[in-house]
């Protein structure tokens, strides 16, 4: 039983993440095309996913499954509250299973969650991080109008070397 759709898009829907989705999550976060860009270094089994589900997915922040119109899961998108309440600031995160890269689901999902964050949750600022080696991710934020705010040098270690991490930000009123 898939969860209900929370946000409807043109060719992408965002629905709630349910216990039945744990296997999909596990397969995604272990995939080399996903994990090397999210700093996930240890293998994640179903028990790890169960724990993640109970503590994070069922927590206060927003986590949604990215699907196409046939309810096929593609990846997940998250909106995490950062700072204190007066900061009205959220961090966006997302991954799409590499099997489904290049179809625009990541871009559309991001666009939908950004609109939701500004127009329904009244955020003032949103930001996202991307490894400098992850061009597709940077393109999403650039195309959606985020400003490249800074590069943190050697901010993480992945694939045998230190890597820069880029911060992208958008302030309310800048969303087109």
């Amino acid at each position: 039983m898939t969860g209900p759709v929370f946000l409807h898009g043109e060719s992408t829907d965002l629905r709630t993440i349910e216990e039945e989705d744990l296997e999909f999550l596990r397969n995604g976060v272990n995939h080399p095309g996903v994990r090397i860009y999210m700093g996930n270094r240890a293998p994640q089994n179903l028990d790890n996913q169960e724990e993640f589900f109970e503590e994070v997915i069922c927590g206060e922040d927003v986590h949604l499954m990215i699907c196409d119109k046939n309810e096929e899961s593609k990846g997940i998108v998250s909106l995490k509250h950062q700072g204190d309440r007066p900061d009205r600031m959220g961090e966006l995160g997302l991954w799409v299973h590499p099997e489904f890269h290049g179809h625009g689901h990541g871009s559309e999902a991001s666009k939908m969650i950004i609109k939701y964050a500004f127009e329904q949750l009244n955020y003032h600022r949103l930001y996202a991080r991307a490894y400098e080696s992850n061009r597709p991710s940077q393109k999403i934020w650039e195309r959606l109008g985020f400003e490249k705010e800074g590069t943190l040098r050697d901010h993480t270690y992945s694939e045998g070397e230190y890597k820069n991490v880029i911060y992208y930000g958008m302030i309310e009123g800048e969303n087109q």
Partner: protein
Amino acid sequence: MTETESVFKEKEDVLLRPVEESDSEFLQQLIQHKNVRDTIGRPPKPLNRNEEEKHIEEMSSNDDAAYFLIEFEGEKAGTISLHGLESEYGKGEFGISIHPDFHGKGIGTESVKMIVEYGFETQNLHKIRGGHLEDNIPSRRVMEKAGLQEEGRERDYKYVDGEWKDVHWMSILEDEYKS
């Protein structure tokens, strides 16, 4: 035994019964419907089935609140709750959501009438109030038909589609109900 057999109160084709954990999927569909989540008091955050079950569990063990599932002709149509059952001075506040597929059938009106009756006759409250957002006229009509009158407007209550909306509070007192 179906859940409908646990009927608590009924009027016309509308009945109120306890909410069960097995109603969690319906509650997800209801609360996450854009038309519903834009008009209710709680913030528009997605809830998965586990979170919804937890919510049902918390409501059913909360002595200060009564939580009902609304059925119409045997189908799940919405929910209504009454908070403040243990409040000082006996001031209750209700919240209602009807799934948009069931709008326009008078279900809201019957449900609010039943919750008002329940609040005064079973819970012996002194006052019952409900709120509607400024542009939600159908909700206002429902409350008026159940005998509530406006007592005030609270400014910038909820943020919807990029703007703040006021809430209008409506209420009925026990004397008005009994006259």
